[in-house]
């Protein structure tokens, strides 16, 4: 039972982490808070849903379509909405307002196009699980976890071992110095934003087979992603992973030991305690990449 609770918690945490990574990447490098984050997740979920129901494309295959599409969308959004606001007065406030507005537009667009029905798909993994030493692992969530780990490893590699990664880290640490060193900050910003959006798109794809989609589904994940990001440390991508797993485990334990109603109370309580002890978050600042 204990192992089962841990396993369920970790799998849930994996999903939370995957949803949060893109948000934190964007914050860490461009220093903007993307309030439309959850709504991009929603758009990706609808994309996956319709690719499956209309075209019959398996959600895991549709990653090959959604991911590049979201890179493009990310580039467009950055060019049209974010870039004009950067480097001017009140950038932080203006980008928050702009992305919040974008979120409303996306939600209402979805409501207009697809109505508020809950939509869910049945794939060959839905409702299936892998049994491992008496522990049941949800098939959909296990794959989500695998993808999450793969993304983490890949992201770590890119950031630490490649030239682009070095540039990204340089921009993240000191934009002006990076500019002086000849790094094209604008290019790095575009790239980071596009990649951050594509990551949340990937999360949407992975989530669709085990979850359901409706126009305001992003709101819940938005709140969760922000809590995780702040918990793990703003701007730290390892922090987002750790934060996600911690919240998943707390919810799982509190849900079984106390009650499901109280699970969120516990996770928010621990969140508050951690903030009190370490205001910068678990992996904040010192470990920022």
């Amino acid at each position, binding site marked *: 039972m204990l192992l089962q609770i841990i396993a369920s918690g970790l799998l849930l945490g994996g999903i939370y982490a995957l949803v949060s990574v893109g948000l934190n990447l964007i914050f860490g490098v461009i220093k903007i808070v993307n309030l439309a984050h959850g709504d991009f997740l929603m758009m990706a979920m609808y994309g996956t849903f319709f690719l499956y129901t209309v075209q019959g494309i398996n959600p895991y295959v549709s990653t090959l379509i959604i991911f590049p599409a979201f890179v493009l969308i990310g580039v467009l959004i950055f060019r049209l909405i974010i870039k004009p606001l950067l480097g001017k007065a009140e950038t932080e406030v203006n980008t928050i307002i702009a992305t919040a507005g974008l979120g409303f537009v996306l939600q209402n667009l979805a409501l207009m196009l697809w109505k*508020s029905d809950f939509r*869910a798909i049945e794939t060959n993994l839905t409702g*299936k699980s892998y049994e491992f030493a008496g522990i*049941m692992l*949800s*098939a959909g969530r296990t794959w989500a976890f695998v993808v999450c780990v793969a993304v983490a490893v890949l992201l770590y590699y890119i950031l630490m071992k490649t030239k682009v990664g070095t540039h990204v880290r340089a921009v993240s640490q000191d934009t002006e110095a990076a500019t002086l060193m000849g790094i094209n900050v604008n290019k790095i910003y575009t790239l980071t934003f596009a990649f951050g959006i594509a990551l949340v798109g990937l999360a949407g794809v992975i989530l669709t087979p085990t979850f359901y989609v409706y126009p305001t589904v992003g709101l819940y994940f938005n709140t969760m992603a922000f809590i995780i990001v702040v918990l793990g440390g703003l701007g730290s991508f390892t922090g987002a992973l750790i934060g996600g797993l911690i919240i998943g485990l707390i919810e*799982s334990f509190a849900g079984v030991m106390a009650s499901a109603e109280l699970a969120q109370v516990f996770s928010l309580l621990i969140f508050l305690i951690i903030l009190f002890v370490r205001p910068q978050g678990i992996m904040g600042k010192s470990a920022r990449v």
Partner: protein
Amino acid sequence: MKRFIGILMLVVFMMVAVVGCEKQPEADGDKAAGDIKIHVGVIEPVTGPQAPLGQAEYDGIQMAIEMINEKGGVMGKYPITFDFADSQSDPAIGASEAERLITSKGVPVLMGSYSSAIAAAISEVAERNKVVLWEMSGAADSLLLKGYEWTFRNEANASAWGAESVEFIMGNDAAIQEKLGKSAKDLVVAIVHEDGPYGAAVADGNRATAKKYNMNVAVDEAYSAKSVDLSSIILKIKSANPDVLLLTGYVNDGILFNRQAKELGLTVPILITHSGGHSVQAFVDGVGKDADFLMTVDPVPCNPNTEGFSAEYAAIFEEFVSRWTDKFGVPPYHHVEYRQFAQTMLFFNEIVPAAIEASGEFTAEAVAEAIRNADIPAENSLMGHGAKFSTPDKPWTDPWLGNQHTGQNYEARAFINQYFDGTLVTVWPENLAKQEAVLFLPAEHPLARK
């Protein structure tokens, strides 16, 4: 010339005045014969998160009015007209729209209104303005515990649904004895519900009735319907290993519960759900074949045996099914649209004629009086039960929780419906049952205990 025009205008004015005067007594004389205007206000959420079911409700109401009007209207001579307002899934907007319908459209009756929260907001407006609220779907008990005079609910309150599922199990003692080797009152019960007013009220009925029979309630858990993960609650149920799972939720969490229960290998011999999310098409679309053999407790008998109705109502039912199927491509066998249709029919076919016969007018006071004096036999209601309403002077005390309800139809009851091939069919009580209930989940169901 000027003077000529002046005189001409004076003449015209006098002619108009004379004609006008002449018309007046004519109108007065007509009143008794046919000047009763049946005009009501309908409030449903057709935008916002509750829109899918709100629209289905509105469609059900419209179809009932359309069918009555085709036959000349109420009593065959008073056509029904209505003003519609969209509550946008928001109680505050529902209340302000109710206010608008009353003050600017002058409606004496409001009908609707989908959720208990919206119904509660509208009922306050109705009470203040002394206008009848004919509530057709807000099921939470709390709506009618305030002693209001102008709000009436024809269908069973939510705690009665919760009581019905336990009574149904107790009524199957012999079968349970044979299959599980113990009597119904020794069963281990798990009560799981969403934590809103509706889920809580149903669970109150479950709990109180289970306690009455001294059943062992091993799990009693609430969860948020917005939750993205129900695995902890499922693990808890799994470790308690119950014989009966009584589940109350909405569509999305119902789908999620089903998926995660399968993933975590939850099995249970008897599974009963309570209306809300489990008896609508969206749930079937979400879970597919897994819907089959699920029992739902609903305030209406879905796809009942029409022998339980009078010949007139059996014919109305058949016509409704064929019209709805023609119009929407699917039969109206899920509880939402049918429930509204049935109660709109009841209102205009039974209540309003009584009001007009007693007072000769269609006013809030006349309608309220007709509802208070109503004694409608079960065969004249497509809801499958009779109608007698409690009042502030004579409140009804429910036998489960001991609360006093005013404006509640105390003849109302809940029904057990069950999915066969994706369609809900009445299985309990016997007079409306079309098929025999399959009490234990059969082996082919993924949650069946083998």
